[in-house]
């Protein structure tokens, strides 16, 4: 996966790049708008992660020009929260998604996965682990052959954890991903939903799909074949 990361804030660029590289992506980092536009025209990328505020050409005009040239490369915009108007404008200009600062690298990776899947139209919309099958399009969840009914929140919770088995997610991060808005981080709403989800996935309580990491958060159980963190 070849990613063009356009971000002028050096430190932000650094951790994003590190996170993407950990996922096995190759990352081309550009800090200037004009250079970014040239590269985007010249080379082929699987996805462009584009900051809006840039020295030189700004993110929105890069996006507009690319779309005017019928360049279909998936674009994810990085915006500050205040730029509601820009966010809208970006989507109208043909951005595939946007993510607001401050964001989690994990969230960005999930979005990249989603837009590239959509772009390539492949069948990677099925998650499978530990005998659980999750269809991201039809939102069907099965354990073996048994269908499981989940609410919208439980579904988001499950897929978020399941995408990175073995990785620990702090409660804060889970709240932000599943609930979106500014949930009180000390609330126990995540615990309650995890308990419910566990019961639905395994009413007997024999098999723990979701493990608690004391004092930190939760993780989806790592398949026995792979090395744990």
């Amino acid at each position, binding site marked *: 996966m070849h990613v063009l990361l356009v971000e002028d804030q050096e430190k932000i660029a650094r*951790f994003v790049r590190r996170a993407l590289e950990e996922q096995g992506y190759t990352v081309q980092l550009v800090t200037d708008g004009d250079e970014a536009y040239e590269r985007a025209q010249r080379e082929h990328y699987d996805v462009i992660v584009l900051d809006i505020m840039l020295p030189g050409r700004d993110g929105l005009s890069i996006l507009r020009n690319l779309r005017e040239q019928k360049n279909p490369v998936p674009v994810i915009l990085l915006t500050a929260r205040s730029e509601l108007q820009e966010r809208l404008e970006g989507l109208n200009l043909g951005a595939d998604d946007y993510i607001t600062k401050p964001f989690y690298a994990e969230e960005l990776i999930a979005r990249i996965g989603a837009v590239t899947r959509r772009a390539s139209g492949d069948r990677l919309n099925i998650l499978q682990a530990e005998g659980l099958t999750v269809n991201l399009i039809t939102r069907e969840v099965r354990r073996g052959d048994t269908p499981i009914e989940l609410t919208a929140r439980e579904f988001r919770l499950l897929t978020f954890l399941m995408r990175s088995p073995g990785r620990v997610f702090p409660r804060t991060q889970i709240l932000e991903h599943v609930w979106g808005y500014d949930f009180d*981080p000390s609330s126990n709403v995540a615990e309650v939903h995890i308990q419910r989800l566990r019961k639905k996935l395994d009413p007997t309580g024999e098999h723990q799909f979701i493990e608690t990491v004391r004092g930190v958060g939760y993780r989806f159980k790592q398949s026995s074949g792979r090395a744990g963190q």
Partner: protein
Amino acid sequence: MGHSFRARITLLSVTVSGLVLAVFALSAWAFVYRIGLQKIDRDMALRVGPILVVPHPQDHWAWVENGLKLAYGGEGGESCVVLVKGRGGEVLYRSADWPRELNPDRFPNPDPRNPKLRILPGPPLPPLPAPRAPQKTAPAPPSAPGPPPPTWRVLPVAPPEFATARTHSGTWRTCTMQNSEVTLVLGVGLTRFRAEMARVRTAFLAALPAALLAIAVASWLASRRALRPVEELARVAERVTASSLDQRIPAEGADEEFTRLITVFNGMLDRLERSFAQAVRFSADAAHELQTPLTILQGEIEQALGATPSGSEQQVVFSGLLEEVQRLKAIVRKLLLLSRADSGQLRPALERVNLTELVQEAAEDAQALGTHLTVSQHLRPEVVVMADRDLLQQAIYNLTSNAVKYNREGGTVAFTLEANNGLACLTIANTGTPIPAEDQDRLFERFYRADRSRGRRVDGVGLGLSLARELCRAHGGDVTLVESTNDRTVFRMTLPMAAAATESAQASA
């Protein structure tokens, strides 16, 4: 509505000028009446005086009356009557149409000793012609009646006296004059004069209301003209909101009494606009500047967390740090939204949002946030509003978390969603200690917490309610506190509903 200053001014000027006009009209009328009467009196004296300076034989009086009738009668004239009394009070002559009610006794008898009697000075009188012997020319029978031979004499006359008398046949003005031998009373009818005066009175009465009306209209208009700067001031002040502090009142053309007021008002708006812009810019800048370090902080902690062994001491520390970052993020985000709202730039990206579903989720959250609580919901299905989903969710969540935070152990939270008159109405009622009355007004202020005494037991910085209100207002709705009595606090949120998507619904049906 209070008293209108304009109405009071108008009323005052109408009252004052009405009084002045009435007094003027009354005295003018009395004056005209008196002048008219004096003219009549003088006229009568002028006619009677010459008659009395010489003696008249008994049979002259009918001719005298004829002469007077000739003078007064005719086109547009008055009727007149004559009475003549002798020294003994006997009536020597009386007009045929003399009104009965006028008793001759009421007029004085002639008195030769009356001190007012005067001989008017004049040239010497010509000598009397010598009487011819009647038997020489035409011997007439001595018994035949005839005028006695004229005697050239001048009689002393007293000045006239006037009186007005009312009778069945009308009102009469009488002029009474006497010489040493007779008293002559001339009565002139006042019917025509009085009719004329009545016409004058009617003209006054008709003119008065017209004049008052004109004065009322004029003063109403004039006071409007005078008060225009004040109305302009009020109009501008009404338009002044956080997003339109650039309103000013034009000072040109204003009266000098108002120029100062306008200048002061405009100056106040200047200062307000400046400091408001500063405050908004500051919180926007501050929030914006915080975004970058927060992004870095969060990103680095996230990676460090992933790099530390699962369940290790460090991971717990990092997780705690992440929670603090989350708190900071929430505050920054709220400040940014509020500063956007303050500067009138909170323009929600509107789409059709199923409010019923959002409230269902909120009720679910409320149950999860407060497991000890009983959460109930009475929701009208399929209430659709035009809203920015994220912002609306935030507003509902703020109210929900409030209802849970300030609840009591084992209490209840009740969600009710109704729709009437195109307005979606969500009420959230919770049990718990009521909000003190003195705090209710300030509840929606920034950083305000009604729970100072309860300290840090509950989390939050007091932005939730004011943000919820601003978010709803940006959608054309509002958030209000309905009541907070013992063990029952109710907040209401209203939002305009989306127009029914009838066409698309029919198309898909």
